C-alpha cells in the first residue's frame, strides 16, 4: 500500500473535525427542546452534515483538489507566533493589562520575526523605538481618543 501524503492526512483530519462538528450541531438541533427554537438550526445542520460528510469522503478517497494544507516549514515558523499571540489574548491581556501585555507581545513578535541580525545593538535599539511608537499610537488611539477602558493590572 502506497504511503499517504502529509497534505492528504491533514485534509482527512480537518474534514473529519468539520464533519464531527456538523454531526454535533445536527444532534443538538434535533434533540434539544423547545423544538421551535431549533427549527432553523435543524434546516442548516442537515445541509451542513451532508456537505461535511461529502468533503470528508472526498478527503479519504484522495479526491481533494483545493487547499494545500500546512507544510512543516510553515508550521515551524507559525507555532512560536501563534503561541505568543494566544498567551497574550487568553492570559496576559487580562493578567498584565492590555497595554503592558500588548507592548511585550509586540516586542517579542517583532524581535522573533525580524530578519535583521540579533547581535547588533542598533537592531535592538530600533526594535525598542518601534515598540515605543506602537505603544504611543495604541494608547493615544484607544485610551485618549476613543476612551476605551481596558483592563490595567500592571503600570497602566
Amino acid at each position, binding site marked *: 500500500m502506497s504511503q499517504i501524503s502529509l497534505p492528504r492526512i491533514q485534509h482527512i483530519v480537518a474534514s473529519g473535525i468539520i464533519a464531527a462538528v456538523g454531526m454535533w450541531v445536527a444532534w443538538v438541533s434535533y434533540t434539544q427542546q423547545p423544538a421551535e427554537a431549533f427549527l432553523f438550526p435543524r434546516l442548516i445542520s442537515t445541509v451542513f452534515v451532508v456537505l461535511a460528510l461529502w468533503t470528508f469522503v472526498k478527503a479519504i478517497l484522495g479526491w481533494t483538489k483545493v487547499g*494545500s494544507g500546512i507544510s512543516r516549514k510553515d508550521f515551524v515558523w507559525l507555532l512560536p507566533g501563534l503561541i505568543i499571540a494566544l498567551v497574550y489574548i487568553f492570559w496576559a491581556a487580562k493578567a498584565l493589562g492590555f497595554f503592558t501585555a500588548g507592548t511585550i507581545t509586540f516586542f517579542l513578535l517583532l524581535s522573533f*520575526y525580524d530578519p535583521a541580525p540579533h547581535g547588533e545593538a542598533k537592531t535592538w535599539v530600533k526594535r525598542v523605538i518601534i515598540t515605543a511608537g506602537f505603544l504611543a499610537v495604541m494608547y493615544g488611539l484607544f485610551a485618549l481618543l476613543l476612551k476605551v477602558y481596558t483592563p490595567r493590572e500592571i503600570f497602566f
Partner: protein
Amino acid sequence: MEFLYYFGDVFTPISFGLLLLGTIGGLILGATPGLSPTMAVALLIPFTFHLAPVQGLILLGAAYTSTVAGGAVSAILLKIPGAPANIATTLDGHTMAKQGKGAQALQLSFLASAVGGVIGVLLLIFLTPVLAQWALAFGPSHLFWLAILGVTVIGSLDSASVVKGLLSGCIGLWLATIGFDDIMGAQRFIFHPALGGGINIIAALIGLFAIPQVLTMFAKGRSANNSEVIEVEKHSIKDAVRELLRRPRALSIGTITGSVIGLIPGVGGQIAGLVAYDQTKKFSPERDKFGKGHSEGVIAAESANNAMVGPSLVPLLTLSIPGSPTAAVLLGGLLIHGIFPGTDLFDNHPDVAWTFINSMLIGQVLMCIFGLYVAGLAARVAQVPQSVMAAVVLGLAVFGSYSVQSSMGDVYVMAALGVMMYFLERFGFSAAPLVLGLILGPIAEANFIQGSMIAGATDGMASYFLTGTLNIVLIAIVIASIAYSVWMELRSRRYTSKEEIMG
C-alpha cells in the same frame, strides 16, 4: 434626484475630515501588501462604533474606495498587488515603471480609477432607489430565499471549491444561531460563557479577516522585504490626462466591465480587472504591446476594479446581499448601528444612505487627487517589514474587538474564529461565505420563522416557501449559481495535470 438634497452633508467639518482620513489612510493601507481592503475595513469598524452612523459609513466607504485604488501603487512600483483587484495592473504597470514611466503609470491608474469609480457610484445612485422600491414587494419567504441566495452565490462563486464554499456558508449560518433564541429565549450551542450573547459581528469580522493574515505573515518566517521601490520621475498630469483621453476604448471597456461585474454578487474586483484587461487586449489594434508596458493595460484594469466598487453596493443597499467580501463587512457596519438595508435605509434613514453614497462620489475625486501625491509615501509604507505589520495588525485586532463592548469574551471569540479561519483557509475554505452566513443568518432565520408561522396558518410550508413566481425565480438563481460554479470547477479541473492532484 434626492441625492442632491444631501450633498451638503458631506461637507460638514467632521464628515469631510473623516472622508479625507479614510481616503488617505485607505491609499496607504491599500498599497501595503498583505493588508486587503476587506481587512482594512474590518479593522476600521470598531472606530466607527463611536461615531454617528453616517460618519462611520463615510469612513468605511472612503477606505473601501481608496484601498482598491491604493493597491495599484505597490502593483506598479513593487510588482506586488496591494489587493487581488490589482493583479491585472501589475502586468503593464510595473513594466512601465521599469521603463522609467512609473509616474505616468500611477497617474493613469488614479485617473482611470476615478473615472471608473465615479461612473460606478452614479450607477449606484440611479439603480439603488429603483431596486429598493422593488424590494417592498418581498415577503418573509422571499427575504429568506434572498438571504440564502447571498450565502450561496458568494459561497459558490467566490470559492475555489463549490462544496467548501457552501460548507463555509453553512458554518457561518450555524455560528449566527449561537446564543439565545429571539422568540423562545432558549439557549442554543452556548458551550462557553463568552458565547452567551451570541457572536459579536464586529469581533467576528476582525477575527475572520485580520487574524488569518497575521498567521500567514508568521508562517512566512523571517522574510525580509526585499522588494525594491522603483523611483518615480516627475511627469506632467496634463500629459497623463491627454493620454487617458487618447485611450477611450480601454477606459470604456474597463468601466463597463467593472460596473457589470460589480452588480453580480460575489464576483469581485480581481475578476473585473482581469476580464477588462483581457477584453481590452482583444479589441486593441496594439494588442502586441500588452504586457510590455502599454498604458491601455493599466487604464483598463484600474478603471474596472474601481468601477466595481459602486455597483457592488447596489445589491447590498437594496436587498442585503453584498456584492463583494468588503461589501459584506460594510453590511456589518450598517447593522451595528441598527440600520437595515432596503426600504428601511432609504425611507427611514435617507440622510445616512444619501450622504454615504455622495461621500463615495466625492471620495473618488479625492482619491485621485491624493493618490497622485501620496503614491510615493504609500510605496515606502508598503516596504514595512512583515514582522512589524503582523504585530501591528494583531494589536489592532485585540484592542479593536475589545473596544466594541469592553468585553474579553469578544476578544476570545475574535481569536478563536481567526485561528479557525486560518486553518480552514489552508484547506480550501474561504472567509467571505462564512461571514455572509454569519451576517445574513439572523435575517434568514427571522424570515424563516415568520414565514413558517404564516405557512402554518395558510397552505403549509412547501406551498409558502416553494411556490409563487418570486420564490421560484430566487430558487432558480440559487440553483443556477451553484450549477454554474460546479460546471466551471469541473471545466478547470479537466486541465489540471495529474501531478497537481494530491494523494
